[in-house]
């Protein structure tokens, strides 16, 4: 599905989400991410950042609205085709979700094995990537024996090993010091330069300001969109200002709509 000749990596249109009969945790979310763009997803705890990411990595179905991933409308995509889409998405879960019984190597190899990769290629790629994130000496270690920072790097390695077209990271710098956070951010930027669309959920606003990428702001289930280098926080960008954003702030808090 293309609009204006661009096939968006992710496109949300009037997406709403509620759990059960509860209130909507996300309301009228509309945005689109261009290939190769880099975004932060910010907002206070409980604003729905994780829920929005879950919608993007297909762990949840929206209650209403349209979500399309790589041009596929999720609502009408056959269930059997979803794994193919998921393989093009790398996810760094907030709590890492490494499999505790598998070695570091096997954890990182998982996306390749799931996709049916050849064991010889897997070996080469996984060892190379783990060396690159500084875990060459921990190939056989199980995640519970690793430090938080090491586990985080394993989780990131697993998310990027299959060269995803879309990388979603939920608070990937939550448990590390600023220096490590910047290092990980540079890793994501490197990946972004290779063409991967990156969305990083964080509440580290200092980091966001330093990096100067486009910013999706969630507040009470509403999404506001700011372009890169847009100055002080909270300034809403009009539709079309950001090249990577379609439609600007379609979902907006009613009281701030004026």
């Amino acid at each position, binding site marked *: 599905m293309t609009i204006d000749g661009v096939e968006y990596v992710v496109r949300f249109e009037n997406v709403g989400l509620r759990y059960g009969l509860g209130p909507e945790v996300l309301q009228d979310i509309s945005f689109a991410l261009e290939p190769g763009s880099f975004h932060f997803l910010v907002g206070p705890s409980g604003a729905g950042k994780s829920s929005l990411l879950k919608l993007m*990595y*297909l*762990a*949840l*179905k929206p209650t209403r609205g349209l979500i399309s991933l790589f041009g596929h409308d999720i609502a009408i995509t056959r*269930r*059997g085709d*979803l*794994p*193919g*889409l*998921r*393989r093009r*998405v790398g*996810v760094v879960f907030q709590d890492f*979700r490494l*499999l505790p*019984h*598998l070695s570091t190597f*096997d954890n990182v190899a*998982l*996306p390749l*094995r*799931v*996709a049916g990769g050849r064991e010889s290629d897997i070996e080469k790629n996984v060892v190379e990537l783990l060396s690159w994130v500084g875990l060459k000496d921990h190939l056989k270690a199980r995640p519970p024996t690793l430090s938080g920072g090491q586990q985080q790097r394993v989780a990131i390695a*697993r998310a990027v090993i299959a060269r995803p077209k879309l990388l979603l990271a939920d608070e990937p710098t939550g448990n590390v010091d600023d220096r490590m956070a910047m290092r990980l951010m540079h890793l994501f930027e490197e990946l972004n330069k290779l063409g991967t669309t990156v969305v990083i959920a964080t509440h580290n606003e200092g980091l966001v300001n330093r990096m100067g990428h486009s910013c999706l702001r969630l507040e009470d289930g509403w999404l506001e969109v700011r372009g890169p280098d847009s100055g002080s926080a909270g300034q809403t960008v009009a539709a079309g200002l950001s090249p990577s954003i379609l439609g600007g702030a379609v979902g907006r808090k009613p009281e701030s709509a004026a």
Partner: protein
Amino acid sequence: MFGHRSDLPLDKDPLSRFLPWLIAFMVYLAVLALAGALVLNAVIVRWDRGVTGTLTVQIAPLERPPSVSAADARADEERRQKAVLDLLRSVPEVARAEALDDQRLMALLEPWLGTTEVAEDLPLPGLVDVELKPGTSLDAAALGARLAKAVPGTSIDDHKIWLERLVRLIRMVEAVASVVLMFIGLATVGTVVFATRTGLAVHQEAIEVLHLIGAQDSYVAQQFARRALVLGLRGGLVGLVLAVPTLFGISYLAAHLEAGLLPDVDMGPAHWLALISMPLAAALIAMVTARMTVMRTLARML
């Protein structure tokens, strides 16, 4: 297949340790039930082969007034017996017709009447053992009618009624054995479904991760199926190993205690093959069941 890497630590599930024993027990019972059915089937075939082709003609002694002397009566009976024999030997299908002598007759009656001399005075029927030429059949009823016309008081017995009853009984026992086998199969399926669901619940988090990084349902199902196959084979072999001595024990006892009742039964290689294939069948049932259970459960995920 057995050394294959698994992403889920299924070996450490408590059920992995206990499923093989359940399957061993199921296979043990299944082998016994199947062996029973096969033995009974062999018995029917043997009886059928041994009994068809023979007839027994019974010549009931005539009632005579007491004035007739015993010697005359005996002579008369012998004359009737000879007439029956002559008629039987004139039938083309008959290979051999032999009257049982008194000694064998007494031997047949001994279990019921004892060895006392009582039997001597009883008016015993004459019995003629008839053997048909192999491969021929005969209308026993028509022959019976001819015999009764020529020599009143004769009747013919082709063992059919007796045999049919026994065969019917055995078929019923066989049917029961089949039902037992079916229940064993269902119980195995139920056990594996339960074990697999427990496994799915225990490893829910890992399965969700696999799911989210793009694993097809079959990728996850395969791991459970492979595990179930290995456990099923292991348990099935234990069950078979336990069942074989039991079978030999039973056949030893049968041969020594009831030798007269059952024809000695030896099972052919096909039968042994059927018994040996039971662990394999159990393992395949376990594998298919596990796979289907996982596929059905995962189909509920987005």
